[in-house]
């Protein structure tokens, strides 16, 4: 479904603050798989997601979604294939538009937009039905501004919005990181429900190793712009957080060894 090959991306090349965010990142995700992605700060997690969604154009490498090469396509041209939930609850919705207007925008993701009314009665029926599954009473607040909702509520609506229109891949960028533990759990449960219900191919970046092992079918660890660990199936089931930490330390240690070689 998704095939990323040898992605390279350098920020501010040729300047003192040059950063190599992606260094030969490669990852293949078959249809229907739920992949969790972990890695330390600066490992290239968000950059990788941005490269897939088209917000960042890579310097080299190729990205194929559903067999189509999208490497050079701008965000809006791949929007019909890529659904996304951002880390910041404010980022995924328009705060001065109403709930139903936001949902209408998402229902039209990647579609031709005409001069028909954006919110029609048959849509409201759909929106109410979907909002009802949240159990937050939002189905009675369709015409409320989405800015009036709490961060957790907005993130839950963002998830619904991402699943209103079929997508080839769903990208979740630490979408529970900005929420309190209880709300985070609610949003995570909702994520698993929605992904299972629609059989979505999903890539979820997370900062929690526990989450990375418990959720989904495959865990990928990134370090310095490439994949350093890729586990699934029985191997993954046998892993616990300390094992993951050990592996993480080992990768870091090798990096230190490399540096000492350079410095000597």
């Amino acid at each position, binding site marked *: 479904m998704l095939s990323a090959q040898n992605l390279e991306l350098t920020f501010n090349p040729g300047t003192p603050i040059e950063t190599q965010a992606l260094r030969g990142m490669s990852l293949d995700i078959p249809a229907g798989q739920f992949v969790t992605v972990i890695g330390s700060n600066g490992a290239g997690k968000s950059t990788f997601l941005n490269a897939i969604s088209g917000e960042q154009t890579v310097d080299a490498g190729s990205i194929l979604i559903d067999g189509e090469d999208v490497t050079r396509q*701008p965000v809006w041209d791949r929007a019909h294939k890529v659904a996304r939930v951002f880390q910041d609850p404010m*980022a995924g919705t*328009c705060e001065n*538009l109403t709930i139903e*207007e936001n949902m209408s925008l998402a229902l039209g993701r990647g579609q031709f937009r005409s001069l028909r009314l*954006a919110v029609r009665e048959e849509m409201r029926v759909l929106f109410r039905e979907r909002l009802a599954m949240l159990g937050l009473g939002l189905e009675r607040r369709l015409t409320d501004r989405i800015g009036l909702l709490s961060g957790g509520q907005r993130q839950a609506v963002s998830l619904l919005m991402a699943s209103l229109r079929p997508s080839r891949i769903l990208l979740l960028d630490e979408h529970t990181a900005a929420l309190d533990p209880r709300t985070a759990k609610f949003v995570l449960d909702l994520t698993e429900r929605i992904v299972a219900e629609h059989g979505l191919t999903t890539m979820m970046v997370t900062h929690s190793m526990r989450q990375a092992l418990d959720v989904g079918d495959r865990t990928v660890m990134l370090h310095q712009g490439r994949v350093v660990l890729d586990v699934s199936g029985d191997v993954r089931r046998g892993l616990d957080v300390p094992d993951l930490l050990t592996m993480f330390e080992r990768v870091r240690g090798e990096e230190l060894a490399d540096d000492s070689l350079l410095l000597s």
Partner: protein
Amino acid sequence: MSVYSLWGSLEIGLIFGLVALGVLISFRVLNFPDLTVDGSFPLGGAAAAILIHHGYDPFVATGIGTLAAGFAGVITGWLNVRLKIMDLLASILMMIALYSINLRVMDAPNVPLITESTVFTVLQPAGLHDYVARPLILLVLVVVVKLALDWFFATQVGLAMRSTGSNPRMARSQGIRTGNMVLLGMGISNALCGLAGALFAQSQGGADISMGIGTIVIGLAAVIIGESILPSRRLAITTLAVVIGAVLYRFFVALALNADFVGLKAQDLNLVTAVLVTVALVIPLIKQRLRRKRVE
């Protein structure tokens, strides 16, 4: 204040209501601080006046003036979207470019329209004074424009434009070509200002190169006054509010200039504008303080 000057301020107020609607689109909907208005308003006036002067139908002339101004707005948007020039700077560049263009269009600093037929003389119903007919004609037009905008912003394209101004990153991730939305919005915004300029020239007896000075401030004043007397999150209410704001603004100005005991003269117009805008900006703050005091 005489009845005559009352009708007069209603007339000009309604014309600037169109400017206010345009400014609402650029400043509020698109979040694009656009000063092109100071050039596109006189461009609409200049194009319409010179065409009428050369014997064109006043409706055709008004239409061409409107389109020309809309095109100017699209260029401002293009400078920003494609050439990555900062929004405010792009609009200032377009504004000063239009000063020269307007002089070229008129081929003189002004084009008088005294005996020529205008949209107002053509539409004027028999048995009504012209100073009453003009505001009534304008009222119908402004209401039609307001309703058309309300409808547009409720459509899929209109909603896409609003999301572009509100959260461009989210808009793009929903597949909206935000750059095109800016061009379209800037076109509509400046077309409305051009339409206002074309009507202003026909109502005030001609186009003048200096007729655009301060248009953006008046438009903003109308938006700010409107928003503070009729605050609402609903766009359909805000479009009404800014038109009322424009009319009220002209009434205040007429009142200030006509009240002899104040001692203001016509040349104090821009100072009065600045004071009015300041007052309108401060009103929400005072309201907030009063509310806090009441709570205590």
